[in-house]
């Protein structure tokens, strides 16, 4: 029906259009589509497919495998992977093409598509890359002349595919490199953030330590001054205010220590659900009546070992925040507990700075449908001194994170603006880091001593030393004061027969409390030694396990606490002496 008088002109038109369809893109799929669409639109061809040797493709390794990379129409493609030795792809070494008609008995064995029951099939070589399969219902469209006519343009097509494959590989490598750089940058950010938190922890711990020493001075002196004043004196009220303010300051110090992970822990087994309900009962009066509380507490999950006081603080902070996020509106706070297997991938989504490993964890979750947070706010909420509240000090959630980290746990946060926030606290079930249970020292009510025992108090802070001396002297003891470790050891070596008890500060610049303790123990195993610090009692006691440490006094302490601990330590010493066998007593 074509009325062209010049078949050669027709051929040139086709080849011209085919040639110019090549090289428009370096994307493999588009490059095949551009070329084969023209081929199907201009020639009487019903189906075309490009097969490439597997090892030349991304993710392909085997040189014995070929893969279908493009088919037009796709609905006819069936197999997508074949051995290169499959008869559908077979071509002799020097052969550019071969052709087979549906009437040939071998035709069916060379078909790897659907609905190709009849027609003529041609397989053309795409250089060393692969094969082009063409099907036409009109055998003349794939005659020798027609196929040879296509040779040059198919060679160009091969070069285009080669360029597309190379481009694909380069893009893949660049993407991989970029992905790996992004991953590294992400890890670096995580490490930086963890380092920042650690630095803040050290800073907070240091500040808390120094403040504790100052508070010992303030509290102690205030208590002494109060005891010296008759109760009717107007100044007594002011001194009470000093004591109250100092106790509040001590509370802040405890929060800073909690954030730094140096708070004191006394752990015991606890049911997370019971704990949540207990706190909730306490807090119900403080939560808006418009807020509905839902609990989805799982029963039958094992208890966890936690410090009840610290965990109460965590829960109260989180429930208070949830309630404040809802504000005056109606809303819902949901409490839930459960157990979860955390994978390494899950750990990446938890708050940074936690050093936990994949495994089974128990969790409790507090979620609200309040105002939620954007990503930037969410990334900062655990930073100390960051607060979105007008009157907030920014220590609440920082302390929460510190406490949870101190328990070998971790925190996950999910939040969306105007949708709400979910905070999930994970705690280790077994084989995880958790604080070891430590029984608090037994202390009794202490009356002023009549024994005239001599106590050596060691502290590098003059104000702390002065207060401790004054309290103990008022308690009826003889007191020697050493300003630092070096002086303490001098006093001890000179007067050790006089000294009945040592109270030693743990952190001193010249010789640490630990070294003072060790050197004295080298000489005397029997003398009681109390260590004194603003840091975690548990951590301290653990360091001295098996070294015959008598006890611990947490700073800042009140006069009563110091006297109670002192009396208890001396009583323990007396008991030891009474229980000592006679033969050794001499």
């Amino acid at each position, binding site marked *: 029906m*074509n009325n062209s008088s010049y078949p050669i002109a027709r051929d040139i038109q*086709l080849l*011209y259009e085919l040639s*110019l369809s090549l090289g428009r893109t370096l994307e493999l799929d588009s490059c095949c589509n551009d070329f084969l669409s023209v081929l199907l639109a201009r020639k*009487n061809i*019903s189906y075309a497919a490009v097969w490439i040797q597997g090892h030349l493709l991304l993710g392909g390794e085997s040189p014995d495998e070929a893969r279908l990379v493009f088919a037009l*129409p796709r*609905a*006819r493609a069936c197999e997508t992977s074949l051995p290169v030795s499959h008869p559908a792809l077979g071509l002799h070494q020097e052969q550019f093409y071969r052709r087979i008609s549906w009437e040939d008995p071998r035709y069916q064995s060379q078909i790897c598509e659907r609905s190709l029951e009849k027609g003529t099939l041609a397989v053309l070589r795409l250089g060393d890359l692969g094969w082009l399969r063409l099907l036409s219902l009109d055998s*003349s469209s794939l005659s020798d002349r027609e196929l040879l006519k296509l040779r040059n343009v198919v060679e160009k097509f091969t070069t285009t595919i080669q360029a597309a494959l190379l481009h694909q590989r380069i893009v893949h490598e660049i993407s991989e490199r970029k992905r790996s750089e992004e991953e590294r940058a992400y890890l670096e950010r995580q490490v930086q953030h963890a380092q920042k938190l650690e630095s803040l922890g050290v800073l907070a711990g240091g500040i808390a330590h120094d403040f504790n020493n100052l508070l010992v001075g303030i509290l102690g002196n205030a208590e002494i001054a109060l005891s010296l004043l008759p109760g009717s004196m107007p100044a007594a009220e002011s001194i009470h205010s000093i004591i109250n303010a100092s106790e509040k300051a001590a509370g802040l110090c405890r929060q800073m220590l909690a954030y730094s992970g140096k708070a004191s822990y006394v752990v015991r087994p606890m049911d997370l659900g019971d704990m949540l309900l207990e706190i909730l009962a306490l807090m119900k009066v403080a939560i808006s009546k418009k807020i509905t509380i839902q609990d989805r507490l799982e029963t039958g999950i094992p208890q966890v070992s936690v410090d009840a006081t610290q965990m109460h603080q965590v829960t109260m902070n989180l429930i208070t925040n949830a309630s404040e996020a809802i504000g005056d509106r109606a809303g819902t706070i949901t409490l839930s507990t459960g157990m979860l297997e955390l994978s390494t991938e899950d750990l990446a989504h938890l708050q940074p700075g936690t050093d936990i490993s994949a495994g089974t964890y128990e969790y409790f979750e507090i979620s609200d449908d309040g105002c939620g947070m954007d990503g930037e706010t969410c990334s900062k909420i655990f930073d100390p001194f960051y607060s979105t509240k007008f009157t907030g000090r920014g220590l609440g959630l920082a302390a929460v994170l510190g406490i949870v980290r101190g328990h070998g746990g971790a925190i996950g946060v999910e939040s969306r603006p105007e949708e709400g926030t979910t905070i999930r606290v994970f705690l280790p079930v077994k084989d995880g880091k958790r604080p070891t249970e430590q029984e608090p020292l037994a202390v009794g009510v202490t009356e002023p001593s009549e024994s005239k025992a001599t106590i050596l108090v060691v502290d590098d802070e003059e104000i702390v030393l002065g207060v401790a001396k004054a309290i103990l002297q008022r308690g009826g003891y003889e007191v020697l004061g050493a300003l630092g470790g070096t002086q303490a050891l001098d006093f001890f070596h000179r007067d050790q027969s006089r000294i009945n008890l040592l109270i030693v500060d743990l952190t001193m610049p010249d010789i640490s409390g630990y070294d003072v303790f060790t050197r004295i123990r080298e000489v005397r195993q029997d003398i009681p030694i109390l260590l004194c610090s603003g840091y975690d009692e548990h951590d301290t006691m653990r360091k001295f396990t098996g070294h015959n440490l008598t006890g611990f006094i947490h700073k800042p302490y009140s006069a009563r606490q110091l006297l109670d601990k002192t009396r208890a330590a001396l009583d323990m010493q007396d008991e030891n002496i009474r229980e000592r066998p006679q033969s050794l007593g001499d």
Partner: protein
Amino acid sequence: MVYSGNASVKYLAYLVKRNLEDPMYLPSGELGDIVHFIESSPLGPSDQVMILLSEECQSRIPALIEALNARSIGFFGAVFPGLIEGRNHHRSGAIVQVLPFDHPPELIHLDPTDETWRGSPPDVPETSPSPVTICVFVDCLAHNISGLLSMLFNRYANSVHYFGAGAGNGELRKEPSIFTNEGVFQNAAVVAATSLGAAVRVRHGWKRSTGPFVATRTHKNRIQELNWEKAGLVYQRILQRDMAPPISQDNFFHATKEHPFGIEKEGQEDVVRDPIQITDNGELVCLSDVPENSVLHVLHGDHDSLVNAAGEAVDACGAAIATKPNICLISDCYSRALMLDNDFSKELNVVADRIEKAGYSCSPEGVLALGEIASDGEQLPEFFNKTFVVALLHE
């Protein structure tokens, strides 16, 4: 129908009940007439009503949708500049045809700004031993119609025969022209897969007069350059050689109606591209896409050859089916009808004569389209221009 299914049984019953000589053409195109006709048809639950609506009745579409939705009748359709009924063509009225479908028709939205679409075409029965037929009606001014047809070809390949038409109005105003139970839409297509088999054939009868020319720069349906020159200038020179009047935006159709472009297709007539407009900067806007670097010829219309081509298409179509068809659908180009003018009746008579001569009891019915869609499944479906497409649907 050659494969089992309730739809086939119902359709047989429907055909028995219905006298095939009954006109499907409703001259008034009034809402009441259309609804009454449909209600009096024995509709089964999987049947769908195909409504071919003349441009004159376009304003009734919202009421029609409301009325048919209220009666839970599934339907799809499109607006065309004219309708074909037997030996006649009309500028008014409606053609209503009830067809069996295994799946409801699907609406596809063609994005007017890029080459994407929303929606997916309906499934066709995979177990069918012979191809079924899909009907595609598309807004003729929608973008990327060739992309839509490629997508359908990739999806169905030769498991279906393709028949369809470009919808719209004769003035080529941008207006919604595709409708279904979901509403009436612009920049959209409706694809319906009837379980009937079909033979589809395409002919136009245009002959090459001048060429070849290379479309050295094109963008979709705009020819910007021919042989590296402004397309409008080259086209003007060609037409002047054929003694046509100088072209302008005002006389464009009359000056060019007998000189469309043709793109070479091996073993077939050239694929016709109908220039419908010249822009201020000398670009030629065609009704369908013209691939860049494609080689074109200017064609010339001879009334007799065009009329005969339609007859040949019917003969070839009849030769491709073994059973007598139940329905004869025509998609004939609106601008071809305008060009043939009084001779267009001859074309319709030739078609009707060939149908009768073949002993078929069905009468030709169809549309004057703004672009014709056809493929037997072995070739990429094309959006033809100035072409005659016939489909003989059979069980």
